[in-house]
Every structure is written in C-alpha cells, then in structure tokens.
C-alpha cells in the first residue's frame, strides 16, 4: 500500500504500449514504493491538473516494483493519462478493493471470461494462474472483443495459446474478411468449453450486460453461484469508502468490491437504477 491512503505518490512512466486505437498500457516504476497487490485490485491514478480516476492494475502480482495499468481514453482524466509519455510522472495511491478468487479456485477448473477492456483487470489473475499452474486443473481463457483490432495483449494471448496447459479462445463481434476465427458473443465460448462445472470457478469482467449473459450461462452449466466472480463498476472518488459514490446496496465497491461473487450480487443485479 502506498504510504498515505488519500495522498498520491509520484511514479514515473517507464514504458508505454498502444494496445488499440484508444487503449494504452502504462508501466510505472514502483521501486520506491513497491505496491503488493492481489489480482483484481485497482489504484487511483492522478494526471497532474486533471484529477484522479480508478484504474484496475493489469500487471503481474509477482512483481510489485513495476505497476502496470491498461487505460482506455474515454474521459476527462483518462485522456491525459493515455497521452502521458515515458518519463512523465503520474500520481498513484492504492491498491484498493477485493480480489479475484484465485485461491478458492485451487484444485478445480478455472474459466476466465473477459469482454473488451475487461481483460485488463483479469490479466493479473491469469498471470497468477500460470505462475502457479500446478495448483489448478484445466484453465480456460475466453476473450470477447469488438473486432480483432480491439483485442488487448494480442501477442501475449498468442503466447498463452501456444502453451499446452491453457485453452485460449477468442471471439469477435465482427470479423474482417481475413478473420477465420469465431464470430459471435463470448457466451458461445463459455457454453462450448469442456470444464467440470462441479469444481469450477468462473471469473468474468466486461460490460454489465455481457456479465449478466455470462453468469446465466455459467449457472445453466451448473457452476455454483458462490463460485462465479464478477467485477462491478461504479463511480469512485475516494477509493476508501468515505465519499459514497461507489455504493451499490450495502457495498461500497471500493471496499467490499469491486470483485463480488454471484451469490452476493444476484439480488441486486436485477434492480434497475440501484
């Protein structure tokens, strides 16, 4: 954890990769304030003069000295963050929030279902699974994106696929003429994946409506509600449970979320405007 829960520390951008037209992965040098984090947690990133925004950590939890975030330029703060070049300093505080259930998943199959930018908060979980591969049975990484150009971590996905111990499937909403992979929705990948529902953990992250479809499919396959994990997104200003913005029913999603299990989320998911 950075020293002060409300005051950022400065970290230098040491690497910048453009993933898609509007999404960038920034690596920050955290050697002065190593950030030990659990997969699924987020930090508050500060762009000087613009403000703070919650961004999931997308890096390897095994290396706390390099803090990696994958950011989509959609607003007032994410635009300047994505414009930051190597050598710029950003403000960072964290990590905050709950983690993907990588430990409860040990001993069974793990199914990671990611949609769009949702692959970024799941990447640390995938890296953890691969670092400790022997603790898990079959590992599935199912990724949906708008088009092949919108895939994150493309080369890494290909490297994972070339391993013999992880099953990577990618599906796109629209396929250009040279795309010979599946075209459709990510739930199709889930319904066809041959995992053992009685021992599986499903972790999913993406737009809310996508997660709803994924959860329905997982429940139909027989995965227990407490073994389906999703990541809920709400407005956040303080990240420490005091500003009230991220409240969803009884949870402040920055404290008892954003990762929740389906049995925790189910009753609230269907209430419009909660």
């Amino acid at each position, binding site marked *: 954890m950075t020293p002060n829960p409300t005051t950022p520390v400065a970290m230098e951008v040491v690497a910048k990769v453009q993933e898609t037209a509007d999404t960038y992965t920034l690596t920050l040098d955290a050697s002065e304030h190593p950030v030990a984090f659990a997969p699924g947690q987020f930090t508050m990133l500060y762009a000087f003069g613009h403000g703070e925004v919650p961004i999931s950590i997308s890096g390897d939890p095994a290396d706390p000295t390099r803090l990696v975030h994958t950011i989509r330029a959609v607003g007032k703060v994410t635009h300047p963050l994505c414009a930051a070049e190597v050598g710029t300093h950003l403000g960072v505080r964290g990590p905050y929030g709950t983690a993907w259930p990588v430990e409860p998943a040990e001993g069974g199959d793990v199914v990671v279902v990611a*949609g769009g930018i949702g692959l970024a908060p799941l990447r640390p979980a995938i890296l953890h699974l691969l670092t400790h591969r022997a603790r898990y049975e079959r590992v599935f990484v199912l990724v949906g*994106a*708008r088009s092949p150009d919108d895939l994150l971590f493309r080369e890494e996905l290909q490297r994972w696929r070339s391993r013999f111990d992880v099953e990577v499937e990618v599906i796109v909403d629209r396929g250009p003429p040279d795309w*010979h*992979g599946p075209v459709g929705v990510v739930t199709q990948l889930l319904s066809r994946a041959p995992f053992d529902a009685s021992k599986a953990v499903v972790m999913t992250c993406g737009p809310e*409506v996508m997660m709803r479809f994924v959860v329905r499919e997982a429940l139909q396959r027989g995965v227990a509600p407490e073994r389906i994990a999703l990541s809920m997104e709400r407005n956040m200003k303080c990240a420490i449970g005091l500003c009230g913005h991220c409240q969803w029913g009884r949870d402040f999603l920055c404290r008892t979320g954003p990762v929740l299990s389906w049995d925790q989320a189910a009753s609230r998911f269907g209430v419009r405007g909660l």
Partner: protein
Amino acid sequence: MSDLTHALAAHPFCQGLLPEHIARLATCATEQAFEVGDYLAREGHDADASYLIRSGRVALRSGRETLETVESDQLLGWSWLLDGTTWHVDAVAVLPVAALRLDGPALDAQMHLHPAFGHAFARQILRSVHQRLERARLRSLDVFGGSP
C-alpha cells in the same frame, strides 16, 4: 442403432427428442464433410436443408462481411421450414467441417405425415433460433464500442 442415428442422438440439437423422433429424423439425414472453402449454402439459392455441425467452423457471410460463425454442436439453416425461401447468407467452411445434412423436403413430408414428430422437431428448431436471437441481440448492443 445405426451409426447415423447414434451421431444424431449425440448432437445437442437432439437433446430432449424421443428415440422414435430421432429415428424418424435419421431417415432424412446424411453424413457430409466439407473442406476449407466449401460452401454449405449460397445466398440466393433455394434453402432446402439444415446442417447439424459436428466439428469445425462455418462462417455465415453476406458479401465479404462475416455475420457470425457456427461451430460444432450447433444448427445451421432452418428457412426451408418457411415456404419457398432462399438462403439469405453464404455459409462457408473456414475449418474442415463434419456435418449431418437434414434434407428439407424429406423432413417437411415427415412432419406433415407425423404431426407429433413435426411438433417436436419444430420446437427444437425454435430453441436454436431463440438462442441465436439472444446472442444477436447481445451483439447488437455493441457493448465493447461506446463513445470515447
């Protein structure tokens, strides 16, 4: 049980069909294989069959656009059930495909002669169409798009 009937019974499309209906379905079915690039359907041609894909991948295309892909364990084509229709899409194998071809006219005759079979079969078709409609709706939301 013949190999063909066995293959039909094993296909998820037939889950829930009574054995006698599967047997009747088998009388309209043949095994087929397609190489990469082969067409299972051509836009504008008479729609006269359904295919139960057993393995591989078929792309449904309109012009150069791929609308969706149909994988193993899925159903391809049902518009022969509606009188005098043609295929609205091209269906081309993008991976080698093994399929069970269900002959439209033969099935149509069986459905008229044996209403109980007709009812059960139509329901299975409707289940597939329903699932595809749900997926199409989700895709139409373009959830990964959104304005920056």
